[in-house]
């Protein structure tokens, strides 16, 4: 068995934050004695990623996703627990380690604002000591995959957000990292650009066998790229498994969409009516009852078309976070 690309065991990060009440009195008091509070941003999470895996890392804001990514990439020192990436201890930030990973954050820039991206690429070539031949090949490849051609010669500040993001991603991948951490790589981008970037990472993963750990607010990103997802909430691991079983596990209802001639009055006899317009009805039906309800619908009403769907993944995730699902805490 090949060793995992990423291994964490009871990974924990505790921040000590000082707190005080608003107001003058409290300000003076805090000069003398600071009250501090411990915040467990990441609270004992364990998971392994095999080389070449693409895993979605999900959780609401403040769940500990970015803190975890920062520990994995070596920017943060864990408070407790074991951690290894490609056999290295990230926080030591050994050069061999840094040459094999990358962290792409939506807002952070690799690129120098006032000059063309191509010049920043040259700088990265020197930083990562890339042989000229390899470098050129990679740049050509990334240029083709991300359609960078006309962008590379313009000063970065003249690029649109999406164009800049594409150049940022290229800059972060010039050294062909084996492990890629993506923190909201498509944030703020339009749908077409999001799709392009998703397709690009899928391609990158296939071509180079890179391990990718991705956080995103857009479930489309996750659905398109990741078979496996890890869900954390308040620093704890809620779920680790494939996307389909996440949906299975956390949905109690299915969505039944029926096309009828007109909307009948007694539709709520079949399930909770989400909407009905021009004969197109959407019903929310308990999972166990779905076969019986669909049979009754087909028998009772002049059905033109009928589909049974799982609720959208966003809704599932929302429900995961809304309920604490105690049984889900044991992965």
């Amino acid at each position, binding site marked *: 068995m090949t060793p995992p690309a990423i291994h964490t065991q009871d990974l924990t990060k505790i*921040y*000590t934050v000082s707190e005080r009440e608003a107001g003058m009195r409290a300000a003076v008091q805090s000069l003398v004695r600071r009250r501090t509070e411990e915040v467990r941003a990441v609270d004992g999470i364990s998971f392994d990623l095999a080389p070449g895996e693409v895993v979605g890392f999900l959780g609401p804001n403040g769940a500990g996703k970015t*803190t975890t990514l*920062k*520990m994995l*990439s*070596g*920017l*943060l*020192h864990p408070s407790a627990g074991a951690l290894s990436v490609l056999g290295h201890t990230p*926080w030591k*930030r050994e*050069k*061999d380690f*840094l*040459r094999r*990973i*990358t*962290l792409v954050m939506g807002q*952070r*820039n*690799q690129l*120098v604002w*006032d*000059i063309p991206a191509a*010049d*920043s690429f*040259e*700088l990265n*070539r*020197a*930083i*990562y*000591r890339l042989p000229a031949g390899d470098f050129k090949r990679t740049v050509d490849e990334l240029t083709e995959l991300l359609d960078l051609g006309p962008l590379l010669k313009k*000063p970065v500040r003249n690029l649109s957000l999406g164009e800049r993001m594409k150049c940022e991603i290229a800059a972060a991948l010039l050294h062909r990292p084996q492990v890629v951490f993506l923190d909201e790589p498509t944030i703020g981008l339009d749908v077409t650009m999001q799709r392009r970037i998703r397709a690009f990472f899928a391609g990158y993963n296939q071509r180079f066998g890179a391990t990718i750990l991705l956080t995103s607010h857009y479930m489309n990103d996750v659905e398109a790229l990741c078979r496996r997802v890890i869900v954390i909430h308040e620093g704890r691991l809620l779920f680790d498994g494939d996307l389909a079983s996440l949906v299975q596990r956390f949905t109690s209802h299915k969505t039944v969409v029926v096309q009828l001639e007109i909307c009948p009055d007694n539709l709520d006899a079949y399930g909770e009516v989400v909407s009905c317009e021009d004969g197109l009805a959407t019903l929310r039906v308990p999972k166990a009852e779905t076969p019986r309800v669909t049979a009754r619908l087909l028998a009772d009403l002049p059905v033109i078309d009928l589909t049974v769907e799982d609720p959208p993944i966003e809704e599932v995730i929302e429900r995961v976070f809304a309920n604490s699902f105690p049984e889900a805490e044991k992965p």
Partner: protein
Amino acid sequence: MMALAQLYQAQFRISLATMIQYRASLVIWLLGQVLEPVIYLIVWSNVSAAGGGSVGGYTTGDFAAYFIVLMVVNHLTYTWIMWEYEYRVREGTLSAALLRPVHPIHADVAENLSSKVVSTPGILLTALVLSLIFRPTLHLVPWAAVAFLPAVALAFVLRFLVEWSLAQAAFWTTRVTSLNQLFFVAMLFLSGQMAPLTLFPPAVQTAAALLPFRWVISFPVELLLGNLTPQETITGFAAQAGWIVLSLVLLRVVWRAGVRVYSAVSG
């Protein structure tokens, strides 16, 4: 070594390109660097004229020579890293630097040197113009003029290392501006920027010589003006070398400790 040379080359090109984008602000910044010594020069010239043509052994022409050379030396050894570091820590741009397999100080050195390439001709031209206006008396001693070059180079290295180390204070406190002010006031008095050190009381002179201050600006100036004996010059070089070694050690310690703090709290 080869790789480092390539890194400097690439960083150098980027810094130059960036600087050329900001020509106007560069000119304004240079103006500040020129104005300060000129103001002191005018003040001291008046003081010396009022004192019958000389103060503490400095004639009006000596003052002119002192402050014009000082302007050039200050420019050649200047760094802005202490102002920039707070911004880096606060804005998190340091994180990107920490993820690169190369020490971030190299980028700073290259950037600083490239800015000097752009601005030094301007400063030298200004020195020439000021010389025509203020008529400095300069007694060039050939060996001292030659020794001046390594003295300036070492002064630059020392000032860079000291200020880079002090800049790391940004890891511990979010308000380093007051700390920076304190340092620059000390620089103003103890490095000879406000007046030649020999005009200060002996205690101040001793402090300036025991601390790195004299060796980052005043020493090369005194050397070029022909105020130092060969013996004093050798002592000066030794002091510079000693402080460079010390500040290298300091830099290493502070940088490591700073990164540890950074990776404990913010990343």
